[in-house]
């Protein structure tokens, strides 16, 4: 709201507040008072802005209040009845209730503190999830006016959604759409940086950190700097409406100028970190992948554009061929390199834009390869601008599950507080009964109790907000440290209006939720208690036990779901991969840039390295090939019967891997048919080995041995100089067992193994098989490689660690971590609930237990009695929870890895764990029951 409108609004409020005070002012001067108030507001606003304005309101409000108080009371009565009378009465009773509630809470501070803590935990978990959702999922693009920006994606014929586009397609969208004032493209690259001078930035997350320990960091190459680079279209910054902090951006230069002097932008974050904010960085040259670039500008601090993190450099898309020595990417329509975003033209709606883009997409179909998915029916989909490449079904399910889990923790917290409230109401029976008999209506009593619980809810909310914010702040700082140092993770978790409103709403909701049931129940029993002194606690204890059962049920559901996910993540690692993951190390060599290393020199180096590694103690085998755990597989079109691959005779597009004859033996992949490759000097035969599923795909139900095929890599992205299997007719000589791939759909289990020529050893990583724990051999291996040529960079990683970095594992394990920490909160709350309920039961039954002990019941029996009573609702809750968890795990099946939905270990384990904790939670207060002194207990009223 503008200052002007706020002022008018405040004047209106002021006029209303003076109503009924007319007799306190000179006759007819009401208008003038309002006029003066408005003048004062205007002065304040012009001199001190919002702050002064607020001060003006506060002093005016105090003055009006004083005026009301000093007026003789009869004048109140004589003022005409106000239309908002009913509201005023409600408001007055509300204030009355609040003050009364605050007084009561102060008296029973123990009760209030426990309730507030329980609720704060529940509200805190929800606030954290909501804030994280806002910061990660629902975040807008980092741009001026982000509401008019949209994400482009295509819905394919198969129903799948594609958020990446080829460069030629991007150009067509950029130039052919009228509904957009600008269309931009964006892609992420990791490039090697040399000649930057100054101190080399240290990796933020080393192996000691959590992510490092989990093996989630990409392997670090020790003597090479990696620079994260966002490759963006030249109009990127102007369409986003972001000006450089210093220097200029790409569209200030013409295409020919850019080509003549290749330029990059540096991010403020990297500039500060790497160059200590040195202003001389503008105009400085650096080398990315060996090509010289000039830094022409600095982007603002924490500017993330269409991503969630700030990179080191920004590179124009037109210069992409310079860093990959390959211009295919900009010409290949099948190479989906870039994500595309657009800014809607003024007046254009998203629907219109979508319709226009769909027409264009259908026109582009004809230009795609015949076997391309993009050749079939496609429609363009526009979604509100977001750095995330579209929320797919499994991510949506994940979000829903996490939200549901957080909601469940809130339910547990409310149930917990409700139990306490009920216990407290039992103690206040006397007071409530008295008020009822003095003429308070039941609804008035319920309102009183609900107001009290709402007060608790709001107090809990105001406690939860700063605590949650501090925790999230710590978590984000930690996450930013753990994040690969090449990127600056930018997450905005500062609470804004939406978070405040969210917390307020759930706090009030929680207050009403946990207050309503006990209020209704205790006001009813208070009615009885006027006539009968006892008998009410029975109803109450049933309700309390019901609440405990509910808490247990919900929290067991959470625990079982969390357990399932954790087991799923473990399973994902342990699952039979079809090869030996545990004893293999991947050694990737990079040759120095700048120096001329001829191909045969490289091959000789690799041979030298291999022979030295093979001689190391503990090494039992060595081969050169891309391991199955690597995410960057290569694909080729396959045609049969010796025909050259073309769209007409295309049989399938399969992954292929160059391997040496000893590959299968070294990795432990058995052959199911035929023979392996023959080890021989000179160029290998034109023989291939297929994986089981590839053979099944190409020759279903037939014997593939002796059949022939040809491979074609046209239309696939590959680097210059890469060894390609195009050309010869290959004869199938054997079939190997499937290995489990790393793609989520498992399509890379279908492999064609092609024999690697001896002189191309340098193209593939070296795989080393070890006798025992491979991590022990890594250090000596690195030392050995350094003795061969100090210029060589070796990146080593166990295959186990590579598997942990795959998408499938990351998704499952993140989900498992979140779910188990949420379920931990649930468990904590539920045990708090059990503890407090049993404690309260013992207090209520002091007299009864005293009598039992006085007439000779042994202490052991008393303990058993109390424990039995308190465990009954726990067991009921466990049963109910298992049923709920059964339902929940059916939902989870989408993200579970090879687990049956009813996983006995998770179910039994969680239930047993819970039972033990429940036993402990009820044992402590039950012990107090044993120590009751019968004499004291009997004397109690």
């Amino acid at each position, binding site marked *: 709201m503008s200052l002007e409108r706020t002022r008018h609004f405040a004047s209106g409020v*002021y006029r209303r507040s*003076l109503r009924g*005070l007319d007799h*306190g*002012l*000179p006759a007819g*001067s009401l*208008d*003038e*008072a*309002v*006029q*003066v*108030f408005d*003048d*004062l507001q205007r002065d304040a606003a012009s001199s001190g802005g919002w702050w002064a304005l607020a001060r*003006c309101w506060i*002093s*005016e409000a*105090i*003055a*009006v209040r*004083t*005026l009301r108080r*000093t007026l003789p009371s009869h004048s109140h009565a004589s003022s005409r009845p106000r239309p908002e009378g009913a509201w005023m009465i409600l408001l007055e009773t509300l204030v009355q209730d609040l003050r009364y509630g605050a007084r009561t809470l102060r008296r029973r501070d123990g009760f209030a503190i426990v309730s507030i803590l329980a609720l704060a935990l529940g509200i805190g978990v929800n606030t954290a999830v909501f804030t994280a959702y806002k910061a990660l999922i629902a975040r807008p693009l980092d741009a001026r006016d982000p509401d008019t920006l949209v994400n482009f994606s295509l819905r394919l014929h198969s129903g799948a959604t594609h958020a990446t586009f080829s460069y030629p397609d991007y150009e067509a969208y950029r130039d052919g759409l009228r509904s957009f004032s600008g269309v931009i493209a964006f892609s992420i690259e990791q490039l090697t940086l040399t000649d930057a001078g100054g101190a080399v930035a240290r990796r933020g997350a080393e192996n000691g950190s959590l992510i490092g320990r989990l093996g989630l960091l990409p392997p670090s190459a020790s003597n090479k700097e990696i620079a994260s680079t966002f490759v963006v279209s030249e109009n990127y910054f102007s369409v986003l409406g972001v000006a450089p902090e210093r220097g200029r951006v790409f569209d200030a230069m013409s295409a020919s100028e850019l080509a003549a002097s290749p330029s990059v932008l540096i991010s403020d974050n990297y500039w500060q970190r790497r160059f200590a904010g040195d202003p001389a960085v503008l105009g400085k040259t650096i080398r990315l992948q060996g090509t010289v670039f000039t830094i022409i500008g600095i982007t603002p601090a924490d500017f993330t554009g269409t991503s969630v993190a700030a990179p080191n450099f920004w590179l124009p898309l037109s210069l992409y061929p310079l860093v990959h020595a390959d211009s295919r990417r900009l010409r290949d329509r099948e190479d989906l390199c870039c994500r595309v975003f657009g800014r809607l033209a003024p007046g254009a709606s998203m629907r219109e834009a979508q319709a226009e883009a769909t027409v264009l997409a259908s026109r582009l179909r004809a230009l795609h390869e015949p076997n391309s998915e993009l050749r079939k029916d496609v429609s363009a989909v526009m979604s509100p601008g977001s750095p995330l490449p579209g929320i797919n079904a499994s991510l949506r399910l994940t979000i829903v599950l996490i939200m549901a889990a957080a909601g469940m923790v809130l339910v547990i917290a409310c149930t917990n507080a409700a139990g306490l409230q009920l216990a407290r109401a039992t103690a206040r029976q006397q007071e409530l009964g008295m008020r009822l008999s003095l003429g308070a209506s039941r609804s008035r009593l319920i309102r009183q109790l609900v107001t009290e619980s709402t007060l608790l809810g709001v107090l809990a909310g105001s406690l939860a907000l700063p605590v949650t914010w501090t925790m999230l702040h710590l978590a984000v700082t930690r996450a930013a440290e753990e994040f690969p140092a090449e990127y600056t993770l930018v997450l905005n978790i500062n609470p804004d209006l939406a978070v405040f409103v969210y917390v307020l709403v759930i706090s009030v909701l929680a207050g009403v939720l946990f207050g309503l049931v006990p209020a209704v129940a205790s006001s009813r029993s208070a009615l009885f208690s006027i006539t009968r002194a006892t008998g009410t606690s029975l109803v109450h204890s049933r309700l309390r036990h019901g609440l405990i059962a509910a808490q247990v049920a919900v929290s067991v559901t959470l625990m079982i779901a969390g357990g399932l996910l954790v087991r799923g993540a473990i399973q994902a690692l342990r699952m039979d991969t079809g090869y030996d993951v545990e004893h293999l190390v991947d050694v990737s060599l990079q040759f120095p840039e700048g120096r001329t290393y001829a191909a045969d020199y490289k091959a000789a180096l690799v041979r030298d390295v291999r022979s030295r590694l093979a001689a190391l103690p503990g090494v039992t085998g060595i081969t050169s090939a891309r391991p199955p755990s690597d995410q960057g597989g290569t694909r080729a079109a396959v045609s049969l019967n010796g025909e050259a691959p073309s769209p007409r005779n295309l049989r399938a597009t399969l992954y292929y891997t160059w391997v040496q004859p000893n590959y299968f033996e070294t990795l432990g992949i058995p052959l199911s048919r035929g023979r392996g490759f023959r080890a021989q000097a000179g160029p290998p035969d034109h023989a291939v080995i297929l994986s089981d599923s590839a053979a099944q795909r190409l020759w279903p139900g037939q014997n593939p041995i002796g059949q022939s095929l040809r491979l074609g890599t046209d239309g696939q992205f590959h680097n210059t100089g890469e060894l390609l299997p195009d050309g010869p007719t290959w004869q199938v000589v054997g079939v190997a067992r499937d290995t489990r791939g790393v793609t989520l759909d498992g399509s890379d289990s279908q492999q064609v193994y092609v024999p690697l020529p001896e002189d191309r050893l340098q193209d593939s990583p070296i795989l080393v098989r070890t006798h025992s724990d491979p991590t022990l051999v890594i250090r000596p291996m690195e030392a050995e490689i350094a003795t061969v040529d100090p210029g060589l960079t070796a990146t080593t990683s166990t295959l186990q660690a590579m598997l942990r970095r795959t998408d499938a594992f990351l998704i499952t394990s993140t989900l498992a971590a979140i779910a188990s920490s949420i379920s931990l909160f649930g468990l904590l709350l539920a045990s708090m609930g059990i503890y407090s309920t049993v404690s309260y039961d013992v207090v209520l039954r002091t007299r009864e237990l005293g009598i039992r002990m006085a007439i000779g019941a042994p202490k052991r029996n008393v303990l058993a009695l109390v424990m039995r009573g308190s465990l009954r609702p726990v067991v009921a809750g466990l049963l109910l929870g298992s049923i709920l968890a059964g339902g929940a795990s059916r939902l989870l099946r989408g993200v579970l890895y090879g687990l049956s939905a009813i996983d006995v270990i998770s179910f039994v384990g969680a239930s047993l764990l819970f039972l033990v904790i429940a036993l402990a939670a009820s044992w402590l207060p039950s012990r107090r029951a044993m120590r009751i002194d019968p004499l004291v207990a009997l004397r109690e009223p």
Partner: protein
Amino acid sequence: MDASNQEQCESQKQYAHGIDGKDSISTREWYTIIRYMSARRPLSPQVFQILLSLAERPRHGYAIILEIQERTASKTRLTASTLYAALKRLLDAGLVAEVAAKAGDSDPRRRYYRLTPSGVAAGRAEAARLDALTTEARARRWLPARHFES
């Protein structure tokens, strides 16, 4: 009523003549003056400030607030409600009266107020009371001694 008081009343009467430009003070006004003087009821700081601000010339409400704020270097700020509540009391007591708006003022909502002789008297009485108080404070060295121009 003792003799000295009578004398003070006399001087008040002459002063009021000067300000009001009237020849006589009405009985009602005399009554008010005497009541204020005999009660020796201190005026509230705000009321006293309003009287001071109207001493020079008639003003409208907003001008009163501004004048007080300016004169006291913002130490005393009146709110609209305080001002009008005080004006109401002053009007009821007959210490101020409404005058017709100036010809130049276009806003019809503006009302102008002036001091009545009783208002002047009450103001003077309050000033005298404060003066007596500060003299006593000075005698006890709570305030520095005054430098007389001599």
